[in-house]
């Protein structure tokens, strides 16, 4: 069913009786060409592009719970392509371009809102590093602008400059960055994939792989065996748990990242802003909630919840730059499982098992990557060649010493 202005008006006047399911609840068939494990943003996007762009068929997405229930449903909704390194920047810029066309592509309003992202600068060394980054962005075809403190104050007049522990010396802005209504991304891709014939199977947990002579034959699930020519893992924080069933150890640790939202407030923050001398970033949703976050808690966890020290640390960061937030109230906090990789960058690659593919290691940056991750993974699945923007996302980059380490933190996942 296509959404259109006419349809919206017609339904409003006739009691909304004509809206059908956004996607069908499919029952698993015995055999597919592709089984994608994980009904999150990346898995659904992969299914969508695989069907729509790469004209593949007989595709199923199997999800152990409800679609969109993982990190796509619990993040701070930011999109941006302000990366430094060659292995990353073209990929994230590709993703941003896909975001820019997403609503028309999907006929679904995911509220892609390019109100800009601003990284504050607090020292000369930071300015040097951000200058290098901004230049790398521009050289990769993205947009970047170095803002003066005054330009920033024009946009955020209530920023703390008079009583600041760390002075604000400028900022790196990407005006095309912004936010997206995160749940709608999962639903939009699900609806799009469904319309292309993809089977979306909820409440279907993969319990094992059937592998014969080094080739994958399908997956064992809580709803029985499902045969597949190609199986694509796409389960973010659960990557190690899943791939262990195929005998793999991964360069990944699962960590908890907390995120926060305030009560609804009249608009104060136009775009996304990140503090450079503490752990705090913030935007304001269309509903008025301030959505903010900071560092991961720092310990391995699958618990989907965090602890107080990080809550306090994030609030301190917020109060350092926005002391006017003191009387805004934190409404809700939640935690997601982050697939923290050893260099802070993702993996989209084949595995040692023929027909078994892997997508993971997104750290806490997976949301913005959703369209490109889906597209590049679909490309790999359909053609067995990596997409041109994702050639560096290989497993063997660690063995070869070709890490993509944006933060320069080394093989210490909780520092990325």
């Amino acid at each position, binding site marked *: 069913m296509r959404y259109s202005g006419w349809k919206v008006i017609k339904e409003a006047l006739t009691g909304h009786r004509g809206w059908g399911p956004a996607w069908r609840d499919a029952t698993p068939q015995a055999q597919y060409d592709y089984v994608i494990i994980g009904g999150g943003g990346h898995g659904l996007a992969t299914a969508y592009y695989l069907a729509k762009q790469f004209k593949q068929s007989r595709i199923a997405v199997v999800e152990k719970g409800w679609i969109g229930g993982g990190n796509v449903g619990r993040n701070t909704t930011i999109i941006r392509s302000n990366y430094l390194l060659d292995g990353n920047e073209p990929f994230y810029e590709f993703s941003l371009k896909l975001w820019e066309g997403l*609503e028309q592509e999907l006929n679904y309003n995911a509220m892609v809102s390019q109100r800009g992202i601003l990284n504050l600068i607090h020292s000369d060394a930071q300015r*040097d590093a951000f*200058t290098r980054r901004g230049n790398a962005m521009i050289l990769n075809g993205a947009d970047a602008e170095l803002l003066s403190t005054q330009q920033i104050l024009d946009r955020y007049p209530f920023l703390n400059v008079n009583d600041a522990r*760390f*002075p604000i010396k400028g900022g790196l802005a990407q005006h095309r960055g912004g936010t997206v209504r995160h749940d709608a991304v999962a639903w939009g891709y699900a609806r799009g994939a469904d319309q292309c014939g993809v089977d979306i199977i909820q409440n279907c947990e993969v319990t094992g792989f059937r592998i014969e002579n080094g080739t994958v034959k399908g997956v064992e699930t809580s709803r029985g065996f499902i045969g597949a020519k190609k199986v694509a893992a796409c389960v973010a924080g659960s990557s190690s748990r899943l791939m262990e069933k195929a005998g793999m150890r991964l360069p990944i640790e699962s960590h908890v990242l907390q995120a926060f939202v305030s009560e609804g407030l009249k608009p104060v923050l136009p775009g996304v802003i990140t503090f450079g*001398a503490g752990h705090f970033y913030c935007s304001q949703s269309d509903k008025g909630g301030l959505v903010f976050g900071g560092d991961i808690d720092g310990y391995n966890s699958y618990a989907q919840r965090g602890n107080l020290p990080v809550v306090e640390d994030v609030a301190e960061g917020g109060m*350092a730059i926005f002391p006017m937030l003191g009387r805004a109230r934190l409404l809700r906090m939640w935690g997601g499982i982050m697939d923290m990789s050893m260099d802070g960058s993702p993996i989209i690659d084949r595995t040692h098992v023929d027909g078994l593919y892997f997508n993971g290691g997104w750290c806490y940056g997976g949301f913005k990557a959703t369209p490109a991750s889906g597209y590049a993974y679909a490309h790999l699945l359909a053609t067995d060649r990596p997409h041109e923007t994702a050639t560096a996302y290989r497993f063997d980059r660690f*063995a070869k010493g070709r890490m993509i380490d944006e933060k320069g933190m*080394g093989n210490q996942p909780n520092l990325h």
Partner: protein
Amino acid sequence: MTQKNRLQGGLIDRGQSYTFRFDGKKMTGHAGDTLASALLANGVRLMGRSFKYHRPRGPLTAGSEEPNAIVELREGARQEPNTRATTAELFDGLVAKSQNRWPSLAFDALSVNDRLSSFFAAGFYYKTFMWPAAFWEKLYEPMIRRAAGLGSLSLQNDPDSYDKGFLHCDLLITGAGPSGLAAALTAGESGLQVILADEDFVIGGRLNAETFSLGDSLGSDWAAQTVARLRSMPNVRVMPRTTVLGAFDHGIYGAVERVSDHLAVPEADKPRQILWRIYSKRSLLTAGALERPIAFENNDRPGIMLASAMRAYANRWAATPAQRVAIFTNNDDGHRTAADLHAKGVKIAAVIDTRPGQPISIDYEILHGEIIDTAGRLGLRRITVRLASGETREIECGALGVSGGWNPNVSLTCHQRSRPAWDENIAAFIPGGDLPSGMTVAGAARGVFSTHGALTDGAEAAARIAADLGQTATKPELPKAEDAPIQITPFWHVKDAKRAWVDQQNDVTAKDVKLAHQENFVSVEHLKRYTTLGMATDQGKTSNMAGLAIMAEIAGKSIPEVGTTMYRPPYTPAAMGVLAGRSRGKDFRPVRKTPSHVWAEEQGAVFVEVGNWLRAQWFPRKGETTWRESVDREVLQTRKSVGICDVTTLGKIDVQGTDAAAFLNRIYCNGFAKLAVGRTRYGLMLREDGIAMDDGTAARLADDHFVVTTTTANAVSVYRHMEFVRQCLFPDMDVQLISTTEAWAQFSVAGPNARKLLQKVVDAEFDISNEGFPFMACGEITVCGGLRARLFRISFSGELAYEIAVPTRYGDALIRRLMREGQEFDVVAYGTEALGVMRIEKGHAAGNELNGTTTALNLGMGRMVSQAKDSIGTVLSRREGLNDADALKLVGFKPVDPSKKVPAGAHLMTIGDPVNAAHDQGYVTSACYSPNLGHHIAIGYLKSGDQRLGEVVRLISPLTGFDHEVEVVSAHFVDPEGERLRA
């Protein structure tokens, strides 16, 4: 305005009258009132507007779960958006404004949304606003954003302060109603360290809202007596106005105490609120239960509220929303409200019970039926009842109490993702399994609803906990109390309503739930996210249950099959300020000051933040108008004569033990075993992944004693790393580590006259001549007539230089002495800028170069990595990707046109190549103006840089507008042979 709806009795202090304003209108209330109770007493029912349709709303509850009556409290910088009128304590001079309306609460232009509501059904955003594509950011979204949000921030800095604190207890009891009080008595008498926290400002919970007695006393009197008893126990801490926000791991709870929110302004030096981190061995949740509404047509008019709230307003606050009220209930509890209000002289228009065989009253009419509509635009006027017989009746009333049964207040049990379980007997969710470690639940919070049940359940739970913790508890004598059984027939919503409100703040109707089902948003989480049900500021406390029940009914499933209600921290929204505590603004992080700070301030130094340190950046002198003038002078004078710089901030680690040298051999990639006593060596530390981690020097003061220096930034992480290597990797090495960074004030004395200057302060028995104390020498000496000191002949500037260290307390005196003794050499003090210039002139790597991705090879130190030993990082530094033939190499750059800058962060391109990422050749890391060379210089990384000396490359920085040519040169701009430092 008079308090026309003020009743007799109640727990308010009529002797204390307070004046307050709501939307500019002046009214009076009493001590003990909340803003909501005072407004109701004054005849005000309309207190807010809903989020989406801007429907007029009054209070639904009398507690912190309030979704409707939320206001902007106070004015100016203290303006507090979204404050629940139902919990805001009245104080004299209180000012509040309604919010999310324009121009006024009674006439709100955006209530037009309500007329258009059929266009704004659940999920309508996702289907529209897409045409034309460019209009989203320009038109639709700004429109939505302006309309959205609830209250507004003042945009001024919060003038109040907040504390954080830490409490320890054996037992934390959350909620001080009957079960909490009984538990506290029991635990307190057993000798446990007890904290009893309650969000209310009067302890007692529902006891203060009911009329029934406990033993011989009124419930509220018993509560007051019990609190007095508890307060007399030294092992019990009673904390009113304290909300336990969250249950975190291992018995840690976060709680906010509202110290000053009931005052116009906090007392001097006192915080507005305190965030307590409570460490408990056990916790007992006695948070009671929350009544739930029933959804029916127009069930949201001001004056319609929960029956328990109506009763609480009448009994505790002596206020009624109207003089003529009706009750709508599916259980016996609703009838209590009718009886209590009737007793207070309020006219009961009717009680409508959905159950057949309802109780009988001689005082007022009781009907079997359901409410199918209501009337009254800004306040309830009339309800329409459909009787079981099928006939409809219209009943005039100004308020309606609704009781849909009670939900145990399980919020805190869910904070570690325990899922509540369905209890058919009370038609509600009760705490599930896997509760947060150490948590027990008692009383109404686990579905034991009668007062007698709550009292005994609380006492028994506390006794079990005490026994668990090794104390013997005797059950305290508890008063006799009502013990009515639960009589409820689930009834969630009146069918066929056009708009029956389920989530009142977010304007979610029963039909929206149906639409979600129709579109396959059936899972509870999908339902919430698609319709925004339960996403309001009450976290769904008043709405989730009905939404779930309606979805179950539509889907033809049982409620537990559809899902459960989950809650996340915080229990109620918490001010950002209190979560940050004192760490805000200038106090965000502690300041570290160098030993020469006082002196530098006297010199008028400009300071710069380096991590938490404040360091002198340069020392402006009279007549100097730009920072460059000062820095150039400091550099030139140092290179010409002598300069002094405080370098205390560099990390210093004392490494001792018989295996100290062997240990350093592991830590550094270059060799240390053969370093002679009295000598210093540059060391490069790799991470285990082969990337450069830090660099510094190690001075061997004795066979078994080294002093290692680290960069300022990495002092803490290097120490941690060294302890890891010592304790985890080589546990039987005899080596001991301790940081001595702050113990020593250390100054660099650099320049051709450095030795001459030092000779004036170093005691004569120490020979610091070039022969006696050559380049890279180190030793323990005395200065100024016997003060113990350390001297290192090391140089970051490339000059003849020393670092001299004295106990920190003498640092100030030493720099004053050196500056005085140096007058004959025109000594200068130099700051971090000059330090940076000189190290770039000399080509020394620093933080910009050691950026966590560079190797020894990149730094031009590849050959330093000893392959003859197994030091940290050696093996992984051999990987192919770290040894590419065209690897980046650290080189220098100078502009072809000497007037041009060579800015850091610029990228490098081969001349003639296209300018894009694919042809990137490297980047500039550090840049400065070199006053010695008279032009800008820089160092940075260039592919195969060491083989490209003399080549001209293109420097581009589109971000900052640079595009010109630079020549690749050696990074050693000054004294490449190192003659000066050996002089």
